[in-house]
């Protein structure tokens, strides 16, 4: 009888292979989207961030076996709390710093920004 360590859950060769192939596809997709400039900048950024998050989920499920542990799911609980802290920390920092940037523009920067926002050609 082989002893099990429940804390981390466990995979099979098939599940690892599946996770690996999915990760490869997501990585290559993001790479070629960027190299070939398939979309316009803003959409491209959103798309590759989406692909990155998809790969995060793939690896969490297939490599780290998150959510497949036995109840109560403490790993998942701690992970969720970390995700909350992460969103507040990163989102909050970017929000504050962009505000700071916006409010400390030089007169030339203000002019450029206004022309850009009002779509006035120079």
């Amino acid at each position, binding site marked *: 009888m*082989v*002893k*099990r*360590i*429940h*804390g*981390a859950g*466990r*995979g*099979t*060769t098939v599940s*690892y*292979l599946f*996770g*690996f192939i999915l*990760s*490869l596809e997501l*990585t290559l997709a*993001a*790479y070629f989207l*960027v*190299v070939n400039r398939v979309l316009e*900048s803003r959409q*491209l*950024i959103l798309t*590759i*961030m989406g*692909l*990155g998050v998809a*790969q*995060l989920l793939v*690896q*969490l499920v297939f*490599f*780290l076996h998150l959510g497949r542990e036995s109840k109560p799911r*403490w*790993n998942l609980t*701690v*992970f969720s*709390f*970390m995700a909350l*802290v*992460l969103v507040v*920390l*990163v989102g909050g*920092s*970017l929000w504050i*710093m962009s505000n700071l940037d916006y409010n400390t523009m030089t007169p030339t920067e203000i002019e450029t920004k206004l022309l850009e926002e009002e779509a006035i050609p120079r």
Partner: protein
Amino acid sequence: MNEQLTATDSKADKTVFGFWVYLMTDCILFASLFAVFVVLRGNTFGGPSGAELFSLPFVLLETLILLTSSFTAGLAMLAVHRRDNNQVLAWFGITFALGLSFLGLELYEFANLYQEGNGWQRSGFLSAFFTLVGTHGLHITTGLLWMGVMMIKIYRQGISIASAKRLTMLSLFWHFLDIVWIFIFTIVYLAGDIYG
């Protein structure tokens, strides 16, 4: 017998859970460094931006190497559960070699940047870049040391319950570093190339 197993079982569970909590706090460390990088990415102080410095095919190679090493670490863990000493050593050996080549490529990139005068003192952008990617590299180095020590231990003593527990944590650590790298690849290199 059964009771004894359950007792060690729940103790191992707790240790692995403790390590999981550490990994989550490490995530927060990396999240702060990511936030710093994104805030500072435009502050090049007249120096080169990411798009001018980084070679995407080179970074793709690094990414594929690390991704493959994460996969082989998973296969090594399956061998650990089967208590197959030789396969454990073989798979961890491959993982170690891949990790080492990743680290070599990263140091080569760093050395190149530094020699061209684009070290961490060049601009806010480069300081943030070296801090974020360097912290990941330090984690990889630690992981490699840990893996080397575990491989010597297994070669000498075989797999015990204690070493299986440590290897479980090592594999969690390794997969976690792969996830962090995915975001470095996306946010630092790919997005850097788009912003130009």
